[in-house]
Every structure is written in C-alpha cells, then in structure tokens.
C-alpha cells in the first residue's frame, strides 16, 4: 500500500505541474489555432530566470513571481512577433509547427548558451513534511498542489464568469462572429497569450522545484506529457486539459512505481498516439 500511496503522492504533484502547463498550452491552441511547441522552452526559460534571481540570494518565490511576469510578456511577444505574422500570411499549420520548432531551438538553446550545460537547482527548503490520509508530502509539494488547484479554479472562474473569459471562448468558437459582436479579438488574443504565458512561467518554476535539479533541456520530455494531457482531453478544451493532466500525471507515476521508473513516459506516449489515431478531438471535444 505504501508504494501505491507514495506514487500516488508523486502523481498528484506531477499532475499539478502538468495541469498548470496543459491549461496554458491548450488555451493557446484553442484561441489562436497554434500548436506552440516552444511552450516547453519558455517554461525552462522561466525556471532559469527564477534560478538567477534565487542565486542572488533572493527567495525563490520572488523569483517565481518575476518568472511569471517575464514569461507572460515573452509569450505575448512570441505570438505578436512570430506566430501572428506567419498566420496572417496564410501559412499552413504544418509550416507553423516548423516555425514553432525553430523558436524552440532559439529559446531553449539560447537559455543553454547563457546558463551553460550543467544542471542547477534552487536554493530552497522543502519545508516540513505533512501527513495527510496516508500520504507524506513536503510543504513545497503541498504548495505546488495548492497552486494547481488555484489555477484550475481560477481558469474555471475566468472562462465561465468573466467577460474576458467568455470573449476568449467566443473567439475560439467563432472569431468572425465575435468581431461582429464588437469584441476586439486582437486584444482578446493578446490577453490570452499574456495569461497563458504567465501559466507557462509558473509551470516552469514549479516543474523545476519538483524536479530538484534541471538543465536547459529538462522540459523536452515534459512537453510530451503536456501534449498527451492536452490531446487526451481535447485540444483547445481547458477542462479537458485538467482531466488529461490528472490522468496522465497519476498514470505516469503509478506505472513508474509498479513497472519501472525508466519507462514512465511510455504510458503518456501510448495515450497520445492512441488519441491521435482514434479520436483527435479528445475525450471532451465534439466528435469531429
């Protein structure tokens, strides 16, 4: 039982990081129709920014706040400066993926060029352990889970109850009609990238906290998990991303405990390929 509970605990933390990341990724796709494969690179850039601040002697939590702001601004620039111009030209979705891969190289290895190739970690305490229902988690892990719950709730409130959130959903559903309602879809899209960019930065820092030590290429494999969670729930569906994150996060860690830790990503891999082959709109998406 302890193995299960321990892996369940790890699974909750992974699911939490994954949820924050996947919600951001899926909303970027839903509102702008761009599969931003550079998402992982922006995450790690945020993680390193927090590290730099942390290494100056400042608390990593302040570093987190700075990373969130920086990734938010950076993502807005990424869309406005790169993706949107290509889209305005009528670039095909395949070429957009190649563009996003190019941006991945620029950002990820730009970080590596500055920060070097060695792994680093934050100077922080994990805090006292907390026992809850058989699980043993550190304070930081609890905070990460808590942040994730906050993000999920916040996303729910944003999309269901605020004017901006509904405008985001309207823009994603029917951009032309949204404009006919007077919605300035350009601003809605900018706001979307700002919010999801912030989520990306947050995800990057908590990912680094959970991973312990990280280098510039640490999110390469994590992006696979994000994609699996997004496609499981349905690309563009925020609630789908939440569901997918929980499923993939738990399945990954539990399978790692029972099968072998080396292949824990295989479950995500299989899930992603199956979804692409069988139901590309995801579990919560409309039947294509």
């Amino acid at each position, binding site marked *: 039982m302890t193995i299960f509970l321990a892996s369940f605990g790890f699974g909750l933390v992974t699911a939490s990081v994954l949820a924050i990341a996947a919600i951001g990724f899926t909303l970027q796709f839903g509102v702008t129709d761009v*599969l931003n*494969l550079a998402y992982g690179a922006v995450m790690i850039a945020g993680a390193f920014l927090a590290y730099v601040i942390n290494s100056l002697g400042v608390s990593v939590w302040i570093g987190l706040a700075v990373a969130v702001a920086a990734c938010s601004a950076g993502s807005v620039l990424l869309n406005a400066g*790169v993706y949107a*111009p*290509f889209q305005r030209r009528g*670039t*095909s*979705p*395949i*070429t*957009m*993926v*190649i*563009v996003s*891969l*190019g*941006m*991945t*190289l*620029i*950002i*990820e*290895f*730009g970080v*590596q*060029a500055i920060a*070097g*190739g060695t792994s680093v970690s934050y100077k922080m305490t994990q805090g006292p352990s907390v026992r809850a229902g058989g699980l043993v988690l550190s304070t930081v892990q609890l905070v990460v889970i808590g942040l994730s719950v906050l993000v999920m709730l916040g996303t729910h409130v944003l999309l269901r109850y605020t004017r901006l959130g509904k405008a985001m959903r309207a823009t994603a559903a029917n951009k032309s009609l949204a404009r006919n309602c007077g919605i300035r879809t350009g601003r809605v899209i900018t706001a979307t990238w700002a919010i999801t960019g912030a989520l990306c930065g947050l995800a990057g820092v908590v990912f680094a906290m959970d991973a312990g030590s990280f280098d*510039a290429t640490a999110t*390469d*494999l994590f992006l*696979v998990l994000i*994609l699996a969670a997004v*496609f499981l729930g349905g*690309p563009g569906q925020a609630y789908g991303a939440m569901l997918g994150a929980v499923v993939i996060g738990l399945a990954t860690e539990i399978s790692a405990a029972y099968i072998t830790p*080396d*292949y824990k*990503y*295989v479950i995500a*891999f299989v899930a*992603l*390929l199956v979804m*692409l*082959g069988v139901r*590309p709109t995801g579990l919560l998406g409309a039947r294509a």
Partner: protein
Amino acid sequence: MNSYYIINLLIYAAVDAMACLGLNQQFGVAGVTNFGFIIFQAAGGYAAAILALPDQSANGGFQSYIGGWNLPFPVPLIGAAVVGGLLALPFTFLVGRRLRGDFAAVGMLVTAVLLNLLATNYRPALNGDAGLSLIPAPGGQQFSVQSSGYQWAFTAGALAACALVYLFVRRITESPYGRSLRAMRDNDLVADSLGKNLLSLRTAMLVTGGAIAGLSGGILVSYISTWSPAAWGYAETVVLFAAVIIGGAGNHLGAILGALLVPVGFEEVTRYIPTSNNLPPNLIPSLEWVAIGLLIVVFLWVRPQGILPERKRVIKTAGQTPSGPAGADVLVIPPPARAAPASPVPSAAAVPSAAPERPPGPEIVLEAIDVTREFGGVRAVAGVSFGVRRGTMTGLIGPNGAGKSTLLAMLAGTLPVSSGHIRYQGQDVTGLAAYRRARLGLVRTFQLASEFKRLTVLENLLSAVPDNRGDSFRGALAGRRYWRADEAAAIARAQVLLDRFGLEGNANSYAGDLSGGQRRLVEIMRALMAQPRVLLLDEPMAGVHPNLARRIGNELVALCAEGLTVLMVEHELAIMDEFCDPVVAMAEGVVLAEGSMAELRSRTEVVEAYLVG
C-alpha cells in the same frame, strides 16, 4: 590540408546529403511531413551495427545488444536500408488517415523523442545510453582499415552511394508518378478524387525515405564505428528539415546544397571559431542550435522556397497540333461494350477516330433511382428519380438549397446516398467509390478552386490521365523509356484540348498563376483528360466572363456531338438557354419539372420555386 580531414568531410557530406535527399523526397516532393525522420537513420545505423558486430560476449562482453552475427560487407548496409524501410510501415496510420497535418507531425515528433528514451534506458537491446562501439568497418578483416587506400576507397563508396540515391530519387520524381506525388502535395483531396491512392503513395514515400535514411545511417556507423542515442535526438530531425528548407524543398540539388550548408557547414564553420578558455564550453554548440532555429524562422519568412527553388517542369510541346485523325482523338468515346460494365477505357492512341455509332435514340446512360440524402434529420434530396441521356448536355437548376449539388455529389460518388440507387451504363454503382467511378468514365468537377497550384497547366492535365504506365512506383523506377510512349500520347491529347479551349499559350505556366476563369478551364480540361463518358460539372461558369462562358459552352456542345454526355449544375440560367436541353428543375430536394428552358420558364411552379425560394 590533412587528407584525413578531407575524407572525414566528404563522408559526412555524403551521408548528410543522402539523408536530406530522402527527406526532400518525402517532404519537399510528396508533402509527407515526417518529424520522426531521424529515427529511420538511427534504425539503419543500429541495424548495420548489430549485423556487423560479433556476438555480445566478444571484446570482454562490456556491451549488451541483440544480434551480433558478424556479417560481412555488404550485408550490414543492405540490412540498414531494409530496416529503415520496414520501420516506416507502423507509422502509416498517422499519415494515411484524415488527421490534421500538424497533429500528425506532433505524433511523429513524440515518437522520435520516446524511441530515443527507450533506446537509452533499455540496455539489453542496444547497450542503452552508452551505445554501441567497436563496430567493425566493412571488409575490416581483409583490409587495413587505417590505411589511406582503404579510407579513400570508403569515401569513394560513400560518394557513389550518395550519387546513386540522387539518381534514384530523381528518377522517381521526374516521372508521371512523381507528378502524382506533387499533385498530392498540392491538394490531396483533389488528387484523391482523380484516382490517386493517397495511402499507397504516402506509404511508398515513408518506406523509400526510411530506407534512404537507414542506408545513410548504416554508412555513417560503418565509418565512425560507434552509435549512441546522443547522436539522434529529435533535434537532429529539425536540422535536416532546416537543411531541406534552406536548400530548397522540392529540389533535389537544393537538398544536397542544404546538406552542405547546414549540417556540414555548421560543423566546419565552428571548427574555425577561436576557442578560448574564458568562454563556457557549451557556448558554441548552444549558439549553433540558436543559429539553426533563427535560420529556419528567417528563411520561412523571407524565402520559403529556399535557395534553389523547385524547378518548373517545362514540357516541350510541338508547335502546331496536327488536325485530322490524331486531333479528333481527344475524346474518343467508344461505344460501350454492352455486357461488360467493367471494361477498361482504352487509351486514346489505340482507338480509331470514326464517330461512334449512335444507338437508335439516345439511351439513358446515368440514372438516379429514388435517391435520398439526409443530413441530421433534414432531407437535402428526397426521393429523386431521373435519367440523363447519352450525347445530351443536360442542365440541373434550382434555387439555393434545392439539393442540386448534393445530387451531383451522389451521382459522382463523393457523397454516399442515404437511400436509393445510382445506375451508370446499366450497372449499379451506388456503392462504388468516386475514384472507381472516375475510372469507369463518370467524372466530376468541383465548385471551388481545385487546380494543383505548383504544377503547370499541362502537368495539371497530365495528372488526370488514368492509365499512364509511368504512374506507379515500379513504372517510375523502370525509367523514361518504359513510359515515354504513354506520356507522349497523353501530351498530344492535352495539347489538342489546350488548343480547343485557347490556353495553348499557358501550357507551361503554373496553374496557380492563372486568372479565375482560366483556372475553371483547366479544371474542365483536366476532367476531359480522364476520358470521361459522362461529365458532371458543378457550376462551371461561376464567376466566369460571359465570353469565356460561351466558349466553354460551345466546346462542350461540340464534344457532346462526338459522344460525350454532360450533366451541368448551374444557376446562370442564360447558359441553360443557350446550351442545355433538356433541363431538370429542382426545389427543396425534389424534381419539379423537366424540359427545355423555355418550357420551364412557362411553368408557374418553377418560377414560383425561384421566387419563393
């Protein structure tokens, strides 16, 4: 210059060029975007390694791997190509289906990442993270591998292999088969409706590219005698894509140029950057990656066609098309064999030009019998029955929502019926797929623009010919001599059509550069190239200048006199006046009346249908 330096450079150049040629064949020519390309090179490398290596107990047994049969040259290299090709087969499910292009690409990318992970972690298979080493070089028993003679011979071999691959992909691409691949790249839906088997084409491309990549991996491994997961991360695929894009996608010389500029070029340039102990050791490699990313984005923005863009295939046409028997052969509609509905359509060259004997009174050649089509509870077509007679130009009119286009689609086979039957030449074709009906002579055109933009007008026409010997992988491989005659016959027929419709001056222009009206003509001519017996036209005159519309109408009438049957959906009712008889009027999914346009105008229910809507 150290000769070993040149040898190293040449071998890497050959290997990278080979890989880029394979990728260009898949991506540049056929439009198959394989973001897992590197795993095919990796598989080839591993295959060559485990075929050449002795049993894993050798050398002190410090490596663990499967295989180890110590096979001599050339078996490991052949094995590398074969494994690369076979590995492609499981992935056809991602590219063959109607999956959004970017989603499929993500699937392939993820596969590359995860296979690298598996290879790294599962040590028993391929020695995991450390990879394989001490791989014997080909002929290592007989020759002194370190000798200059051997090294140069190896280099010559690698370059020869690269040249062979270049000739191979050129032969495939510069053939009717290659034309079909490019058509699929430009507009796969239309290529499908013209009878191209998309799944088979894409599978062939995956396997071919995979085999070439595998061979390149085998050669590389035989040279450097090691192979580990670090050598084939997913980012290597991005490098190869960058090379093909920068060099020029769709141009095989461009692929070679790209290989020299990017993978090889970057290696060489960094050699000359002065190293300094003050700089962090990772800086230069990291900046290389940043530079590749920048090159990709900048090139896609500024010059997406690459340095050496895809060449236009200019086909030399004879100056004047001869009139007389050959000229009248454009559209030979042989009298149908009565009892054999599946008889093949003979090629133009074989059938004499005498006018086909007319059976007494035109018989019904295409028939809808109580045909219905429902969409979610709404009946777009409700129990329609009518027949089209041979040699007529029949019109199909009706207000918006009448069901005309839906009915046409069901007759053509691009939309299935909800109930009812379609009979063509006496045969029930209700369940037959569109491209099969096309092969039987029942051909349709589309309302929306459907020309292949990056093919010339002439190539557009040639792509519709169903029976060109060169339009298969084997046929392409057999070379020009094999399909020259079929191609020449098709070109001659195309020329006649171009002359008839007045586009002979644009034969070698890209179809995408033509005006809207001209593109319509291309579409109609292309349908005629398929040697149809019954031609279904979906609003052919929409947006066409009245003079051009009249010309099209006149040509079609002339073709009907030669035996063609036409069913035309149109709402330019004046065209119906001039050219179509009889005309069928539909509204709200049912047939209202049939007769000449003048008769229909006098029928109040027809007029009311238009006015009431």
